[in-house]
């Protein structure tokens, strides 16, 4: 649907956080009644772009952005999200921002209620007026009617099925008088297939009424089905902007994950060099996982089956929220889990971190500050604590072994050793972990795991939020540790490139299940398709092609 004047026009948008560039020269237009699919891997810059569009305070606090935004023909620089809402841009978030104990109507009109006029207003301000429930209900009903679905305006949100919550959110955006553009961030992620179908037809209906839509989704099939045009972001750049009609999910997926030729060649060369030494088929299985489910908020694992060979570096990839992080957290007993995990032929007790640790498995958590560190204690405590508690290291028996006395000197020595080995920049073993930089904190976490001398080491997002130099050091350390001690490493990461450069085999998780396992040498497009959850036929093709 073409329109003479675009509703929204982004021109040369760029943004860097603390010298770290996340968006560069992104431009595209959205016309009235047009549905734009905005796709890209995690970290491609989608959410930053939306933050800029909505004038989130975090943008101005970190030095503003480059380029300009034209909304409705005028240049727009929203200072707060409320300005954007007032101008007529609605946003439907990934998490529900609904009040559970309120009805549909109350949520749709949250803070925009219809009021009865009252003489008290002049003295006590407008908030003293009572709510005009009848008007509110009719306003809510008309907003719901625009959606083309039936919602009970008096039903409590907490009693609703998930799909209805999503519709309520959209109705809330529609209820504004002048809404012209709605941004939907992963609206179908929590919906069942049939609910998603209804949502898509609703969006088409809205578009036909002239409302422009930006649809952000990882479900590429839906993007192709729904959108008029697709904008692909990668590493902060706009890669492509093309009509959705006639394109395929495979094409979009490869655009999303595709690397520049040199980078690809470098990785391929590196992988090829390793492929000789990682002839994994012949080795025995050290860890096998069957029917694993893990209840980890935001990273639910529904059913995972995989086996890891002794001495290999096994990668687990996938997009955010698909469940890849749940796998190590479930196996290590940190999140409620079920199913079977067998290590060296003996089952591992689940939901018991100590049992997992005692079986000589170790875990470097993705949540450094929350799970990985004692921020208020020194580096020595952080590194030695787990080994002390699980393996009784750094303890001296006193009174004939009646008590175990903590040896601060031994802990300090250990810390010194790892500070040297991993080049941790600090004032000494006593420095509080909370005062270290992200990269150095990560090294402390690794040291903590190494101190356990594990047979299987789980590493989750080892390079998230740390600088390039530290990244290399961390990855090299892992590789070195793997080759020197023969430790089996299971590495979970959202950076495919990183996985391909380090791992022997890589499993891709989609919707809580393993979508496929590929050797690191497989073409990048195949990974892309698995990550985007291509339908089973295509997956099979990809797997065959990959091998």
């Amino acid at each position, binding site marked *: 649907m073409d329109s003479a004047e675009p509703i929204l026009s982004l021109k040369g948008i760029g943004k860097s956080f603390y010298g770290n560039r996340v968006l560069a020269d992104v431009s595209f237009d959205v016309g009235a009644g047009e549905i734009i699919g905005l796709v890209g891997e995690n970290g491609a810059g989608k959410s930053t772009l939306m933050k800029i569009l909505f004038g989130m305070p975090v943008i101005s606090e970190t030095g503003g952005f480059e380029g300009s935004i034209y909304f409705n023909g005028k240049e727009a620089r929203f200072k707060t999200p409320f300005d954007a809402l007032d101008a007529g841009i609605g946003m439907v978030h990934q998490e529900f921002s609904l009040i559970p104990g309120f009805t549909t109507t109350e949520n749709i009109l949250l803070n925009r209620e219809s009021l009865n006029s009252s003489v008290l207003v002049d003295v006590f301000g407008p908030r003293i007026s009572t709510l005009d429930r009848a008007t509110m209900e009719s306003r809510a009903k008309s907003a719901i009617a625009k959606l083309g679905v039936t919602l009970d305006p008096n039903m409590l949100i907490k009693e609703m099925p998930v799909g209805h919550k999503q519709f309520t959110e959209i109705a809330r955006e529609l209820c504004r008088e002048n809404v012209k553009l709605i941004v939907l961030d992963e609206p179908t992620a929590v919906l069942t297939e049939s609910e998603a179908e209804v949502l898509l037809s609703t969006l088409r209906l809205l578009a036909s009424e002239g409302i422009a839509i930006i649809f952000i989704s990882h479900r590429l099939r839906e993007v192709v089905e729904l959108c008029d045009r697709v904008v692909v972001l990668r590493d902060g750049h706009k890669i492509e902007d093309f009509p959705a009609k006639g394109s395929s999910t495979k094409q979009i997926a490869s655009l999303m994950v595709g690397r520049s030729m040199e980078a690809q060649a470098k990785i391929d060369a590196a992988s090829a060099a390793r492929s000789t030494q990682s002839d994994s088929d012949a080795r025995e299985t050290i860890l096998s996982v069957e029917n694993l489910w893990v209840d980890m908020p935001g990273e639910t694992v529904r059913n995972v089956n995989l086996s890891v060979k002794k001495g290999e570096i096994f990668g687990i990839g996938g997009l955010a929220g698909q469940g890849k992080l749940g796998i190590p957290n479930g196996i290590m007993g940190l999140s409620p889990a079920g199913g079977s995990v067998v290590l060296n032929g003996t089952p591992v007790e689940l939901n018991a971190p100590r049992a997992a640790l005692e079986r000589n498995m170790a875990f470097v958590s993705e949540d450094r500050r929350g799970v990985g560190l*004692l921020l208020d204690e020194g580096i020595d405590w952080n590194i030695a604590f787990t080994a002390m508690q699980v393996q009784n290291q750094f303890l001296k028996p006193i009174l004939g072994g009646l*008590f*175990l006395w903590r040896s601060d000197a031994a802990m300090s020595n250990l810390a010194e050793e790892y500070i040297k080995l991993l080049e941790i920049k600090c004032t000494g073993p006593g420095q509080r972990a909370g005062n270290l930089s992200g990269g150095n904190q990560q090294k402390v976490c690794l040291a903590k795991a190494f101190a356990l001398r594990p047979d299987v080491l789980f590493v989750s997002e080892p390079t998230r939020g740390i600088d390039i130099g530290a990244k290399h050091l961390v990855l090299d350390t892992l590789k070195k540790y793997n080759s020197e001690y023969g430790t089996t490493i299971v590495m979970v990461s959202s950076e495919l490139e990183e996985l391909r450069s380090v791992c022997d085999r890589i499993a891709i998780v989609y919707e809580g299940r393993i979508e496929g396992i590929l050797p690191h040498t497989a073409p990048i497009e195949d990974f892309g398709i698995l990550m985007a959850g291509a339908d089973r036929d295509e997956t099979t093709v990809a797997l065959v092609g990959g091998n």
Partner: protein
Amino acid sequence: MDSMKRFVADFGLPRIIITLYLFALFFAAPFVGVNLPASISDTMIRIGMNGIMVLALVPMIQSGCGLNFGLSLGVIAGLLGATISIEMGFVGAWGFGAAILISQVFGAVFGYGYGKLLNRVKGGEMMIATYVGFSSVMIMSIAWLILPFKDPTMIWGYGGTGLRTTISVEGFWRHILDDFLVIQIGENFKFPTGAILVFAAMSFLIWVFFHLKIGTAITAVGSNPTYARASGINIDRMRIVSVMMSTMLGALGIIVFQQSFGFIQLYEGPLYMAFPAVAAILIGGAGVNKATLTNVFIGAALYQGILTMTPSIFNAVLKVDMSDVIRIIVSNGMILYALTRKTKVAK
């Protein structure tokens, strides 16, 4: 100027004011005719009396259970120990020893149940602890009325039922610690060696405990429970251990308090026992989830110093006894300050 600011931020403005206030009181003392040696001696006796109660808060703060407003439970255990020991007819060191021994048994039992309860209400410990403490005091008040105690020094003479509200320990173990190896200098200065020694010994034990494997684990639980869990620590068990320790120390603390005070206070006596101890440790620099022995020593000294010095100085200068009001403002102000401060470890 910056270092000054940082010092103020670290140490906390209220604490600085309190310290300066106490120094001012001590400086003023000789000029307004207050007997300084007697005041210092008084302060020492009070530190000996109350020190262990302050110490009793350390384990629970360290394990992340927050300020133990339910210390009254420990106090109740101590009261049971004291009364049962008297009922059994023990006197002197034997009576004192028996009181402590019995109180520890009760302390362990109460602490276990209390710890179990607190594990179910993680995050809301402080308010629940307060009211569990209050209601236990009332349950015990009923118990004091109907328990079959027989010793004539403890029960109401005639007409009344049950135990007296205050029971003198004179003739049993009054001042048994205060007078042990007492150092008397002049007429006014008395150093309660025994009580201070016991306080020091308990502090040493706590120091040792937190250098053991289990003590280290408890510290980690308080510092970051998720980290501790990921390191294979059974958080609930560690918390129960800390609650039991706190309750048992509270029981010991009240018996030491009684030998110096000279009386056992039953019924509503233990109701607000936790508050001065909590205020003291906070004045000493502890946070809601971090406390050291230094906090205990400084806190006990500052708080007891203020309690001793304020009435004498105010009486001498203004002829007004505002000490009660000042005590209420200082102790609760300090607790309020600690509650509203953003804690370093989020959660």
